[in-house]
């Protein structure tokens, strides 16, 4: 159904240059100005790590990208499609953008495999046998094919998060958003999830990752973005970002998390 590689971005015929573009984006919660004039461009295949203190608006920013939150000013353009109130466009964007949450948000009443096949069957209208095949492929990829018929409640946290990643991948997204995917996990499970993410990164997936795992940032990120009080305060290559932070806020933040 999908057109070959380069021609499926909102019918414009050319691959949009940027995977994600935020232009002077602003958001308020009531009177509270959460996101202040955010400007960001993410190229196809780029991996970006977002960090910053709690409450700085990291989650809010990436949740705006697939319209889990609504922005009030400025533009968000995802793969050439501008995000407006047009439900069709929102659906189109959500089909192309996968998201992994801190608390997994798996569907507890469905088995692992059903979690993975649900969206392909109901959103992509894929035949069940094909969806099953794809689900198993990605479950193998995240190394838990043997859990396919269990329910999420019977898995460990790390396994659940890997199922959540597989579930997103089953929709063949072009862009993956991660909102602190490892911060609800016990230390020994963090690695198994990060390994999967590193694998994804090496395959060229466009990724926007909110995380405090600096090892991950150093290994795969093209850029690290630092947010504070709803603004992007600093953006740099990981090497520079960690060794030679520019702003005082970044220095303070780094000194706190790197101990």
């Amino acid at each position: 159904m999908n057109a070959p590689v380069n021609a499926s971005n909102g019918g414009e015929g050319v691959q949009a240059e940027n995977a994600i573009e935020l232009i002077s984006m602003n958001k308020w919660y009531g009177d509270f100005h959460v996101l202040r004039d955010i400007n960001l461009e993410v190229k196809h295949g780029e991996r970006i790590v977002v960090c910053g203190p709690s409450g700085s608006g990291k989650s809010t920013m990436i949740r705006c990208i697939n319209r889990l939150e609504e922005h009030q000013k400025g533009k968000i353009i995802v793969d050439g499609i501008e995000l407006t109130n047009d439900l069709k466009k929102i659906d189109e964007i959500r089909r192309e953008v996968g998201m992994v949450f801190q608390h997994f948000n798996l569907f507890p009443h469905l088995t692992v495999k059903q979690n993975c096949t649900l969206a392909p069957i109901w959103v992509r209208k894929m035949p069940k046998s094909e969806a099953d095949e794809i689900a198993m492929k990605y479950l193998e990829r995240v190394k838990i094919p043997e859990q396919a018929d269990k329910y999420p409640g019977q898995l460990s946290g790390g396994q659940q998060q890997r199922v959540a990643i597989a579930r997103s991948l089953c929709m063949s997204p072009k862009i993956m958003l991660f909102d602190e995917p490892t911060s609800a996990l016990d230390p020994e499970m963090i690695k198994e999830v990060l390994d999967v993410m590193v694998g994804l990164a090496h395959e060229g997936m466009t990724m926007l990752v909110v995380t405090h795992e600096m090892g991950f940032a150093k290994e795969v990120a093209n850029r690290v973005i630092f947010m504070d009080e709803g603004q992007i305060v600093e953006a740099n290559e990981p090497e520079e970002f960690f060794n030679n932070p520019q702003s005082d806020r970044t220095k303070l933040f780094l000194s706190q998390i790197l101990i």
Partner: protein
Amino acid sequence: MSDHYIRKEDAPLLPPPSSVAGPVHWIRENLFSGWFNSIMTLLAIYVLVVTVPGLVEYLFINAVWDSVDGKACRPAAGGGPNPADWSGACWSFAKAKFGFFMYGFYPDALRWRVDLTGVIGAVGLVLLLIETIPHKRWTAVFMLFVYPVIAYILLSGGMFNLEYVETNRWGGILVTLVVAITGIVVSLPLGILLALGRRSKMPAMRFASVLFIEIWRGVPLITVLFMASVMLPLFLPEGVHFDKLLRCLIGVALFSTAYMAEVVRGGLQAIVRGQYEGAQALGLSYWKTMGLIILPQALKLVIPGIVNTFIGLFKDTTLVLIVGILDLLGTVQTGLTDAKWFSPNTATSAYIFTAAIFWAFCFAMSRYSIYMENKLHTGHKR
């Protein structure tokens, strides 16, 4: 060797000591585990000793199972064959009037139509409720969309060469089931829609749902039935007639819809936001999110409340009696006016009979709901 705690051979497998299992242990654990429980146990035994023999005597030993009229159920003073202080259930009354209690005044020769409707319904229900039987979807479509039409044609007649039977000749368990099942089948889906409406982001939807729910929930069912049977015809234009039973059916159905909506809303509120977000992030539309993710979980959580509403509805069907529709209780009361069957025991045993039938239906619903809850448990904690 000093590490004597390490076993060299397997320890033998032994039966549990009698203090852990066995009847003595059970009695001690469950009946005499403290002074309070012991007193309660003794009290309960006392109550049972006092009541059970009398009950057994009334219900079974003295009971009259076969007779052509109420004479056999009367003590000597009333002209019966029994001693003066005799009392016993008059089951022969229920037996003699059983057809009336089942069908009301539905013509004898046409009762096979009711039976056939019942048999199709029962088979369909069994096919639906037993999970190992396949083709659930088709059975459900049949039961929800085709069966009501078949039932209407069979019960009402007036087409396909079937003689027309007015609804005021319907009665007994037939009416009780028609009212209860219609109420149940209509109230669940409508209640779900209303619950969704009440939580909708659109103010107009929300307002309409709240208005509907609060109006119907704030009015006693008796009032609803009076409105439906007495007042509504006054508002209808001249010559427009629609059936009294149908009007009551709609009244009962909408009334329980309002209750159902609130039960379902309770379930919706228990679903965490992450479930909506997980579904939305995958690109599921509002209705797919609701139908595939939210409702299956929400409804499962409120199965006890849903069944509670069903059971309440089932028993409330007896209220149609006061607008002149003969449900099971109505036929029993009508039957009691038959002078031939007069005896001091007739009414009591007839009401016990009625209660037993109602109880059997309600208990079945309750058991099935427990079975469903266990079946749907998927090991996740909440």
